[in-house]
């Protein structure tokens, strides 16, 4: 693997009077990140998943601290304990919600079988709320030059907007996606601040559409010809990243990205390759475990497998369970290295920031947000960094 370490690690030069567009840099070593997620996966295994709050925090700390903008590195000040508390609070709130959901679903089913399925929509709205609040937590934990980012706005208004757009998405088979993203980003960025600099989003849905409409046409084909799916998805992600980054503004600070369509496709293929390799290793392991267990029972080999007895053998089930857990964790390591770290580095490498002088003397403002949103996001399994 190539060790990404651009630019060469030298102390930043004193800023000239009229700064040119400032490339953004990443100083972290791939090896360090790999060790971090490897150890984290081990601890997740030992703690049956509870370590995830601290692992997520460590990953963010690594990525933030090694991201240099204008020569100064960012910092992530969130902590695992905050995420744990957010998770517990979310749990306390979600439990009655789940019970209520169950009871309402029961009444609905009483009237018509499977009538409770539309209630899933409620959780979609809730998930959008969680996404907004989780972003707010992350942003208020992001510090650059001794000043934090912060966020206002209402998670519920955002959730309402996102849900209405979601409805339109269904009606138009996804064709409104560019305009949906533009509208939602506008809301998010308008309510984002760096000190006393207000954010805004200048990306337009039409531009996104012009760059990506052909992917929308190709998607139905990808459902039949799966090997082209990673190409389509990779190109889509690259277009989305470039469009999104190029729309970000904080006061006079402008972000621009030159990510090319093909830049991310390789990463997705590498992940697929690793999944195939790990899957093979896992199957070989399962085979060996079966042979081992079979050789320990009295019945002959063929009889053991023919009688379906092996489906019920406890040692085999335990071995399979442990193997599966290790397999899942190894996949997590692969995904985190390629789709978090490498993707981050690749995307950062395409970014230019201009007008940084507007951020040279910004007054600190804004309060910390709690980690409730992160807790909801964890409880509802909606994505996030």
């Amino acid at each position, binding site marked *: 693997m190539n060790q990404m370490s651009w630019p060469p690690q030298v*102390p930043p030069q*004193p800023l000239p009077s009229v700064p040119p567009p400032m490339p953004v840099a990443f100083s972290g070593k791939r090896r360090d990140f790999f060790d971090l997620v490897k150890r984290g996966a081990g601890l997740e295994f030992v703690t*049956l998943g509870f370590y995830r709050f601290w692992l997520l925090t460590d990953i963010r700390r690594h990525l933030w601290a090694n991201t240099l903008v204008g020569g100064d590195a960012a*910092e992530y000040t969130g902590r695992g304990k905050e995420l744990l508390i957010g998770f517990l609070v979310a749990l306390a709130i979600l439990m009655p919600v789940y019970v209520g959901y169950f009871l309402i679903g029961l009444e609905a089913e009483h009237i*018509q079988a499977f009538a409770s399925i539309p209630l899933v929509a409620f959780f979609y709205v809730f998930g959008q709320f969680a996404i907004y609040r989780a972003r707010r937590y992350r942003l208020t934990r992001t510090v650059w030059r001794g000043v934090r980012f912060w966020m206002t706005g209402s998670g519920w208004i955002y959730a309402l907007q996102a849900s209405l757009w979601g409805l339109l998405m269904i009606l138009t088979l996804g064709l409104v996606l560019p305009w949906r993203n533009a509208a939602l980003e506008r809301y998010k960025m308008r309510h984002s601040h760096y000190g006393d600099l207000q954010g805004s989003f200048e990306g337009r849905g039409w531009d996104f559409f012009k760059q990506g409409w052909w992917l929308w046409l190709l998607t139905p084909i990808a459902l039949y010809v799966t090997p082209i799916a990673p190409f389509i998805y990779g190109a889509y992600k690259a277009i989305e990243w470039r469009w999104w980054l190029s729309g970000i503004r904080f006061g006079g600070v402008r972000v621009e990205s030159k990510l090319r369509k093909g830049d991310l496709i390789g990463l997705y293929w590498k992940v697929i390759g690793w999944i195939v390799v790990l899957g093979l290793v896992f199957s070989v392991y399962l085979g060996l475990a079966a042979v081992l267990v079979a050789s320990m029972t009295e019945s002959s080999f063929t009889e053991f497998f023919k009688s379906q007895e092996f489906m019920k053998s406890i040692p085999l089930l335990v071995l399979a369970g442990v193997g599966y857990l290790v397999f*899942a964790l190894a996949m997590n390591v692969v995904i985190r290295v390629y789709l978090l770290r490498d993707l981050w580095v690749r995307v950062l490498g395409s970014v230019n920031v201009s007008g940084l002088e507007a951020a040279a*003397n910004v007054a600190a403002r804004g309060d910390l947000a709690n980690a409730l949103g992160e807790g909801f996001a964890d409880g509802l399994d909606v994505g996030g960094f």
Partner: protein
Amino acid sequence: MDSATPETLTSQGNGSAVYFDGVSSRRRSVTLRCSDRLEVSEDGQALAAWDYSDIRRADGPAGVLRLACLTAPALARLEIRDEALAADLVSRCANMDDNTPGRRGVVAIVGWSLAAAVSIVAVVLFGLPLIADRLTPLVPEAFERRLGDVADAQVKTMFDAKVCENEAGQKAFVKLITAIREAAGLDTSVQSGVLSSSVPNAFALPGGKVYLFNGLLAKAENPDEIAGVLAHELGHLKHRDSMRGLIHNGGTSFLIGLLFGDITGSSALIFGSRTLVTSSHSREAETNADRFAIDVMHRLGRPAKPTGELLLRVTGKEGKGLSIISTHPLSEDRLAQMSRQDRSASGPPLLTSEEWKALKSICSDKI
């Protein structure tokens, strides 16, 4: 180094650093002086002085020592690139790494996680069955019936099944079920019927509903076989097993889901371990229902063994080995239990041969 005016030298290095005061984002090139406190000054003007014992390490990029101070604004940062100066400061600040959790913090996380895991597993294995037992009698019948209606509608949609009610067959079925119901000591609130589906099965729903699939009727050779099955399902009703199962199942899924959280793809794991736990509970309920069925059949003066034979005919030989994931006991064991306590028939047959014939063809269109 690139610092413009190295005026005040520390013991090592030229003392140059970058300082952010945490109030504005201004980047200040400062010089550091290590006296009894760490003094930060810009162009000769003092900006801050930090006590060594209050200085903490903050996350920084590779090759940069980034410091914060407990008594300064929370986000004030000092960045030192000079290695010698950094090493000097590290040796002076004894409490620098107090904020980083370190090995002890990780041990605490692991320890408490394991404690949480153990207590969750203990609750799943020992607490939940108890809770389900105690909670079930407290659930109002009306609520249970409501649940039953819901399940009823779903089952009928899922199997695309209609209730079979050709007149003669229905008459025979009512006769059979009434005899069993009375022997079982259940009141008339029990609803039952035959569903047109080729799946050889029968089941009880919460709130007093018992269904027999036509597929099982087709495989049965005499009324006693079917009577035992119905008695078994009535046993579930009597014990309110589906309500108990619901509480037990829901609780188990929830708690195990708590445990494994977000390990990607863990839903298979959650499903797997839940199956293990709940099926052991369900096997127990099945054995109890079997015992109940045997009891009822004896009260009717009919043998229980035919039911066991029917079960074996349906499932086929299941083989030996511990079936820890199956929800029912092995058919062989069930047959053995039913034959062990078998008595020969002492009462009259439950159905006449005409009635039996009518029951078998309950799903064929009205003749």
